Every structure is written in structure tokens, then in C-alpha cells.
């Protein structure tokens, strides 16, 4: 158990040491990488452990908020993803951020993130989850805003934090409601409380639980960037690319899915079937996956394409959780983490080699110039578009499709369309970036990146292919363990997914191979359904700010001006009489105080 506490607190100690001591020495990057390696080793050592330990963080009478660690299959498996991807991203960052003058701040942020994310994964109670939930929001804010002198980065960081805060509003309410219903904050004790509640209040139990779960779900909507709070994730690409790989693709954004699954696991899956909240969750996920995939087809910035792809895949996972087939969602989370981190780091290598060019139309022909990046990126793409039998993404996407097919045929239809769109936009991205001729000077001068960058790519590529076979030893959640037999409709699902793949590859290749500019132009998708514009211009400027200005006006002129102003003018004129004797506020005060004394006398004698 001591190991688990070290796993949790080591990154915090490192972050503090970096900030306080090592900032100026240049040792911060190395120390952070060493800490990431240590946490990965500990995570491996903890595989298979099932224990809980806690200490009291805030005690009042018999009430206590704990900080605790819960080791089980879910948390130890997730820790492998967090520390594994984390370690590779740390190593990649050594090279990527080599020339950055604020390296120490960057690595401090990474260590802080590792601490926060570990806390979410290991948490044994809801308040602790919330604490670390907010802290990952902070580290994400710090890292997105790493280049804070750029207006776009500073705005993106703020936007990410605020979107998450809006989600956390619901999350907190949900936690409080669940606490009221179950009488417990600890995951281990919730189920008993819920059963007692259902027993005592059978008629309203479904409704109350639904309301609470929907509030909790708001937290996941913010963190996992589901509709309608998805707008922050694409903007978060303003952060350094390794950060996007770790936080905004593999781990933090998946925390919403992880949390929902943890809640289902704690409260019992049977309580979520036929719960109206589950339907809402499933549809939110399904619609997010579709909308994000449509938006991805018309983006030109390579990181933004991947960001929308992440949104879309997160939608898949949320949908699976909503269909009460969370194991499929967790399995997809596991495989997705590796191949999406690979794709992001690959894009980082491209951006690094092309001198911070991110527009795919200014790249082109990079496969020849950067073969390792090109091939590993191809492997990542293959996993994302689920090339049958040889990639991990195929197996997990099959599970998602199976879940949808079993529970809701409309969502299954959406999921297949998303599979097609995914193949289409990734083919577009790959063809435009890596094939054909180079289309800019920056791309002409590109050459393969150094080993500190390509070794993580190769390792991640291996996981992109192999992770589906490693779920056993790595403790990842894998629904195939329970259902070795192919489920009903297996052939339909398989043929749909292969058809989507072939069609997507074909249209993507035919449309984009050898093109100099985008032959398609769909403003609705390119402009992200105008949602961002609506938020910025309407909600923030005209609603929030105008509303605030109106309130401020009333505050100033009604409360302050008329009501109180009357008093103060009266008092000031009284004060003027005194000021003729002497100047200053003291007399006015003495006057008021004098009235007080008179009142004292009055009341004492009365």
C-alpha cells in the first residue's frame, strides 16, 4: 500500500521541487522524467492488487472526508494508461520542448498533471474525485496557456477552465444529491445506501437517482468535452503538442468516461438499466460522436482534425457507458489512449519538423522525408479507423458497435456512419499530409526527428497494434473476457464496420489524392455548426456580459444611488454642519457613534 501512496504523491513532490528549487538549475525536465518512470514502474508493480486505504482529510464530529486509494482492476489498469502514456510523453517532451525558455514551468505542469490524474484514478470517494477533477482542470489550464503571451493560447486556457467549471457545477450538485440518497461519499459504501433508499422510496427512486446521475454526468460532459461543452477541446490545441497527446487525447478527457464507469460500478449496473438518465447519456455520446466527426472532415489544422476525432471517439465511449455497456467504453478508452497519443505525438513530430506549421495543406509528401513518423502515423491511423483483425482499435470499436447494436439500433446506425466518417477524415489527413508533393518551404526542409521523439512513437505504434491482446496482463477492462462467443448480429456488425472502412478509404483517397487544395467546402462543418460563434458572441457577450452590465447598472443606480444615496446625502449635509467646526470624517463618525451611546443609555434604562 505504501507504494500506492508514493505513486500518488511523488509527482506532487516533484512538481513542488521543480517550482521551488530546481527552476533555475535546468534539472527540472530530467527530474520530471525520472518521476514519470518511477510512477510507471510502481503502476506495473501494483497490477493485480485489490486494496483500499485512506486517511481522514477533514473531520468534524462523526463526519469525515477522506483521501483514500482504491486499488482494483479498474484503477490499476487505468494507471498503466496514465503512467505509460505519461512516461512516453515526458520523454518526447524532452526533445520537443528543448528550445523552450520556460521548460521548467512546462515540466512542473506535467508533474502536477500526473499527480492530479493519478488522484482521479485512485480515488476511493467522491469528494476526492472532485478535488483531483478540479486539479486536472488546473494543470490543463496551465499547460494550454504555456505560451501565455499568445492571445489565442491565453484565451483557450481560460475557455477550457470555464467550460470545465460549468460542468463541475452540475458535478458538485450531483455529488451532494448522491450523498443525500446513499448517505455515503465512499464508493464502497454507496451501493448499500442506494439499496436502502430504493427499498424505502420505491416510487420515486428512479426519478431521484436519474436526476442525481444526470448532474454527475454534467461533470463528465465538461471534462470529456461532450455536447454542448465540447468547444474547449479543439481550442486546447493551442497548448504544446505533447500536452495535447497526454491530457487532451489519452487521459484527462477520458476521465469523464472513467468516472461514469466508476459510479456505475459502485452503484451496481442493474440500477442503470432502464434509467432515463442512461438514455440521455447514450444519446449525448452518440450525437457528440457524429457532430465531431462531421466537423473533423473540414478542418485543415492537423491538431484540430485529431482533436475533433478525439471528441468523436469520446462520444463513442460515453455512448457505450450510457448503454450500460461501460466495459466496451473502458476497453475503447484503453486502446484509444495509445493510438491517439501516437497520432498526436506524430503530429507533434510533423509540426516540429515543419517549423511549427500545422496546416495540412502546407505539408504533403512527408512520408519520404520522415519515414518513421510516416509509418507510425499510418499505424495509428489504421488503429483509429479500425483495420480489421490487426489493430487494437478494431476490437474495441467492435465492442462499441455490438453494444449499440444490442441496445439501440438508431445509435448503431449513427455509430456506423461515424466509423465511415472517421475513416474518411483520417484518410484525407494522411493523404494530404504524407503523400503527394510538398506544398511549402517549411515542409521542403523537413527531416526525420531524433530518437528521443521517434522511440516513443515506435513504442506507441506497438501498443496501437498490440494493446488489444495485452488487456489481461495490463489489467485493462475487456468485455471479451465475459463474452467469448460472438454475440448476436456479429456478422451484421462486422460487415457494417468493414463496409464503412472500405467506403471511407475509397472516398477519402479518390477525393484527396494529389489535390492541391480541398475539393470539398462545407461551411457548416468547417465553422463547427457555428456553435463556437454562438457561445462567444451571444452567450458570453450579449447574455453574460450584457446581463452583468444591467445588474451592475441597477446596483449602482437603484440600491446605491436612490435608496442609500438618499441616506448618505442626508447624513452628509448633517456632516457639513460639523465640518464647519472642524474638518474630516471623524466628526461624522463621532456623531453616529454618539447616537449609538444615546441608544445604549435608552435601552439600559428602559
Amino acid at each position, binding site marked *: 500500500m505504501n507504494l500506492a501512496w508514493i505513486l500518488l504523491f511523488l509527482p506532487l513532490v516533484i512538481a513542488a521541487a521543480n517550482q521551488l528549487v530546481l527552476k533555475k538549475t535546468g534539472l527540472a525536465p530530467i527530474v520530471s522524467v525520472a518521476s514519470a518512470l518511477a510512477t510507471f514502474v510502481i503502476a506495473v508493480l501494483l497490477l493485480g492488487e485489490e486494496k483500499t486505504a485512506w486517511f481522514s482529510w477533514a473531520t468534524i464530529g462523526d463526519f469525515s472526508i477522506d483521501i483514500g486509494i482504491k486499488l482494483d482492476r479498474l484503477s490499476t489498469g487505468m494507471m498503466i494508461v496514465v503512467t505509460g502514456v505519461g512516461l512516453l510523453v515526458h520523454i518526447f517532451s524532452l526533445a520537443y520542448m528543448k528550445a523552450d525558455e520556460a521548460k521548467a514551468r512546462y515540466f512542473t505542469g506535467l508533474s502536477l498533471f500526473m499527480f492530479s490524474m493519478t488522484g482521479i484514478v485512485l480515488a476511493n470517494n467522491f469528494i476526492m474525485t472532485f478535488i*483531483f477533477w478540479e486539479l486536472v482542470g488546473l494543470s490543463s489550464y496551465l499547460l494550454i496557456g504555456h505560451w501565455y503571451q499568445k492571445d489565442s493560447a491565453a484565451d483557450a486556457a481560460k475557455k477550457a*477552465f470555464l467550460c470545465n467549471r460549468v460542468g463541475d457545477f452540475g458535478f458538485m450538485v450531483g455529488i*451532494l444529491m448522491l450523498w443525500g440518497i446513499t448517505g455515503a461519499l465512499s464508493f464502497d459504501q454507496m451501493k448499500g445506501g442506494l439499496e436502502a433508499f430504493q427499498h424505502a422510496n420505491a416510487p420515486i427512486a428512479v426519478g431521484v437517482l436519474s436526476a442525481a446521475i444526470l448532474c454527475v454526468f454534467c461533470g463528465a460532459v465538461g471534462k470529456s468535452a461532450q455536447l454542448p461543452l465540447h468547444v474547449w477541446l479543439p481550442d486546447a490545441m493551442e497548448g504544446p503538442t505533447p500536452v495535447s497527446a497526454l491530457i487532451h487525447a489519452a487521459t484527462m478527457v477520458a476521465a469523464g468516461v472513467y468516472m461514469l464507469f466508476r459510479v456505475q460500478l459502485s452503484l451496481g449496473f442493474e440500477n442503470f438499466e432502464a434509467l432515463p438518465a442512461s438514455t440521455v447519456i447514450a444519446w449525448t455520446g452518440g450525437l457528440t460522436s457524429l457532430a465531431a466527426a462531421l466537423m473533423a472532415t473540414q478542418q485543415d489544422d492537423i491538431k484540430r482534425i485529431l482533436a475533433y476525432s478525439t471528441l468523436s471517439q469520446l462520444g463513442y465511449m460515453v455512448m457505450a457507458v450510457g448503454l450500460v455497456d461501460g466495459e466496451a467504453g473502458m476497453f475503447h478508452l484503453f486502446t484509444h489512449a495509445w493510438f491517439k497519443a501516437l497520432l498526436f505525438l506524430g503530429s507533434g513530430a510533423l509540426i516540429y519538423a515543419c517549423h511549427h506549421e500545422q496546416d495540412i495543406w502546407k505539408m504533403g509528401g512527408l512520408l519520404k522525408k520522415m519515414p518513421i513518423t510516416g509509418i507510425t502515423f499510418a499505424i495509428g491511423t489504421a488503429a483509429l479507423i479500425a483495420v480489421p483483425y490487426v489493430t487494437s482499435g478494431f476490437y474495441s470499436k467492435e465492442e462499441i458497435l455490438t453494444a449499440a447494436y444490442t441496445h439501440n439500433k438508431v445509435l448503431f446506425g449513427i455509430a456506423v456512419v461515424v466509423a465511415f466518417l472517421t475513416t474518411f477524415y483520417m484518410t484525407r489527413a494522411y493523404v494530404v499530409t504524407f503523400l503527394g508533393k510538398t506544398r511549402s518551404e517549411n515542409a521542403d526542409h523537413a527531416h526525420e526527428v531524433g530518437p528521443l521523439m521517434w522511440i516513443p512513437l515506435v513504442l506507441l505504434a506497438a501498443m496501437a497494434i498490440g494493446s488489444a491482446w495485452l488487456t489481461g496482463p495490463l489489467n485493462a477492462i475487456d468485455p471479451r473476457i465475459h463474452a467469448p462467443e460472438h454475440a448476436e448480429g456479429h456478422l451484421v456488425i462486422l460487415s457494417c464496420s468493414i463496409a464503412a472502412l472500405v467506403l471511407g478509404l475509397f472516398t477519402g483517397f479518390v477525393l484527396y489524392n494529389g489535390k492541391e487544395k480541398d475539393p470539398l467546402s462545407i461551411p457548416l462543418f468547417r465553422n463547427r455548426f457555428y456553435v463556437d460563434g454562438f457561445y462567444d458572441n451571444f452567450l458570453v457577450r450579449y447574455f453574460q456580459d450584457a446581463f452583468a452590465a444591467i*445588474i451592475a447598472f441597477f446596483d449602482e443606480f437603484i440600491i446605491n444611488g436612490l435608496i442609500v444615496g438618499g441616506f448618505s446625502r442626508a447624513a452628509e449635509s448633517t456632516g457639513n454642519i460639523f465640518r464647519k467646526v472642524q474638518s474630516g470624517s471623524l466628526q*461624522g463618525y463621532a456623531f453616529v457613534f454618539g447616537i449609538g451611546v444615546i441608544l445604549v443609555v435608552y435601552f439600559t434604562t428602559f
Partner: protein
Amino acid sequence: MLALLVFLPIIAFIAILLGAPARLTAIGASAVNLALGLFAAITWHNAGLWSFSIPVLEKPALNLAFGFADGMSAIMVLLSVIVTLAAVLSGKAPEGKEKLYFASSLLISAGAIGAFAATDLFFFYAFHELALVPTFLMIGMLGRGDRRAAAWKITIYLGLGSIVLLAGLVWLANLTGTYNMVEMVKGAEKVDPAAQKSIAALLVVGFGTLVSLFPFHSWAAPAYASAPAPVAMLHAGVLKKFGLYGLLRIAIPLVPEGLHYWLTPLLVLLLGNILWVGWVTISQKRLDLMLGNSSVMHMGYIFLAIAALIAFPENPLARSAAIVLMFAHGISIALLFGLTDRIERNTGTLDLQDLGGLAKSAPGLAFLFGIAAMASIGLPGLANFSGEVLVFLSAFKSYNGTHGLGPVQIACIFSIWGVVISAVYMLRAYRNIFQGPSVKATATAADLTCADRIPALLLILALFAVGLYPNLLLNLL
């Protein structure tokens, strides 16, 4: 020992008036007081060590009596001495005004410590009034901007509030027949239900005005904006908590039924603090006014804890939550006002439009202000979160899903939206001041020197201590 704690600032005040070096005396006395305050917080149980009483009047029996009735007093005294040291360390007196500047700061501190440690109702009230006089004077004489108007406004408001409060307190003293606060609580049953309603109204309005309860709040922002840094730090951080302390110490034990009668209006008013004033805060264009309004807004959360305590009397959670949040807010707002003063000294402006990119030229200031901002928006790991989460939990204490949400829970849900509002204005301000490209005012702005950082670090240490491990504070209760 307690006499020393209370009167050391007054002795130092007299010494400064008699010609002792102002800044050094103030710092020395505050540092000694900090040590004493820490010691007091740990050992307050020892009544022999920490109480004294001098008879002043035979009839009515008035005693200049001090002691720690419970941990709340000790924690508030601790808050006072921490903020006092930070305030005198970070303040910079105008040329030739050192005496007035530091002597007044010490007097405010003495008043606050005296009020929190007093066990006699008269001195409880009188020490608070004692602290208000230098507050008004400092704003009126050494303030910035429209200082006369601000000084008048705060004088009138707090003066009237004090009178209303006094009426309630005297009424209570007459009913219970004593000025000894401990004895008063023991005689709580003498306060009949009919009187409770009126007394509760007087106390809520009186104490409420001192804490800037909506709609008696409009004195606060302009006063803090024009007050010299130590005054803003001491008043917003410490002295303002007097009203909340009074509600917890006197109103809740003595007039519980009366308060219960006013519960719904109180919930509406505290939502006025959180939402109405929250939106007012969003539209502020100057940092000092924004912080002033934000401190008004955050009072709403402490009122929420008090409301939870009124609604569910068997709720130790709510009382502890209120105390933790009072402490946390006091430290964090003092830190914000101290650093804001630095921003103005180093850049010459507090207008959000004129600032930008300050983190480049003053990274140390940006880092410390960032911590303060995060504390104020309730980020876990810093003290305010510990308080806020306990407040929310305490408001949901009686909810069990069976009967739907009660008024306190509904108010709590609206209050949680305030957490979003805080983040909106605080991050916007941080974004405008520290991030983005450098502008004229910030390009060559100086950073903090090592000595400048000491007061901020002192406060941040307290924020982290309570934020990382709230039991440090809760165990003192």
C-alpha cells in the same frame, strides 16, 4: 498572555505616537503577536493561560474580560495576527505619513483581536468600533481616487449598521440580565419567542451590514478600492468577519427561533450576494473594484453555512464550515489586496484595459497572484475550497432524497453556480493583467524583490496548510 496579545498592538500604537520608528515597531509587534497567536490557537483549551478580567463597572456589571470561549475565537485571533503581519509588511506609507499609516494599522488589528477575544458584550462591541475609527480615517486621509465619498459611505453604512446591531445586543443583554457572553448563552431560555423575531432581525441587519450582506453591500467595493493596502487587507480580511463571528457567537445560540423565522429572507439575501453581486463583479473594469465586489460576493457562502446552521441546528458541519471559510477568505482576500497594491505600484494602473502580459516582466508577481486568484475561485488544495465544500455539504446535511430539495438545498445549488461566476471574473482579470502580449504599462514593470514576497508567502503558506489538510484547522476547534 491574552492581555499581551490584545494590548501589544495598542502599546506599539502608543510607542509609534511617542516617536518610535513606525514601520519597525509595527512589524516587530505584529511578529511577536503572530507567535503569540499561533501559540494561543494551539493551547486555547488552557483557560488559565488565556483569560483575564478586570472589573470596570459595578452596575451594570461590566468587565474588561477576555478569553477563548471555544476554538472559533482562537482561530479568528490567529487569522487577525497573520493578516496583520502581512499587512504591515506589505504596506508602503506615503512620504511623511508613516506614523499615521502604521499606527492606524495596528489599531485596526488591536480592535479585531480584542473583539474576537472579548467575553464581555460591551467590549466585544467596543473593540470593533475602535477598529472602525482608524479604518475610516485611513480611507479618508490616505485613500486613492474618490476617497472622501468612499470614506463617507463606509462611515454612514457601518455607523448605521452598528446602531441597529447595538439595539439588538442591548436588548439581548437586558433580557438575559448580563453582559458576560458566556453567561448570556447559558440564559438563552430567557429570550422569549416574541422578542426573538425582532432581535434576530436587528442582529441580521446589524451584523449583516458589517459583513456587506445584500442589499447593504454597496459601501464595500468603493471603500476597499480606495483604502490603502493594509486597511483593505485588514478590513476585508479580518474586521469584516466580525459580523459573521457575531452571528455565530451570539445570534445563533441566543435567538435560534427568531433566525429560523427569517430563514427564507436570509437565503434570498445571500443569493443576492452570490448571484447579484457576482454579476456586478463580472462587469467591473478595475481590479480593485472587482476584488472589492468579489469579497462581498464570497460572504454569501459563509451566510449559506449560517443558514444551514439555522435550518438544521444539529449541524456541527455548518459551524465548522463557516469558520474554515472565514479563515480562508480572510487570508485569500488579504493576499489579493496586498498583491493588487503591488501591481499598482509597479505598473501605475489597475485598469484592466491598460494592463496585459505582466507575467513576462514580473513572473514572481504573476505566480503569487495566480495562487491567490486560484484560492479565491475555490481551487482544491487551497483553503477556500476546503471551506466551500464543507459549506455545500452542510447545506445538504438534511437532504436524503425522500422529500425533495428544501429551500436551503435550492439556495445551495444556486450558490454553486457562483463558483462558475467567480471563475469567470477572476480568470478574465488574470488573463487581462498577466497574459497576452506586453503593453506599455507592463513592458518594463519591476518584479517583486525577495523581501516583497515575504508577506505574500506567509499568507500562501496558510492557504496551503488549510487547503491541503483542513484537519490542521479543524483540530483546533
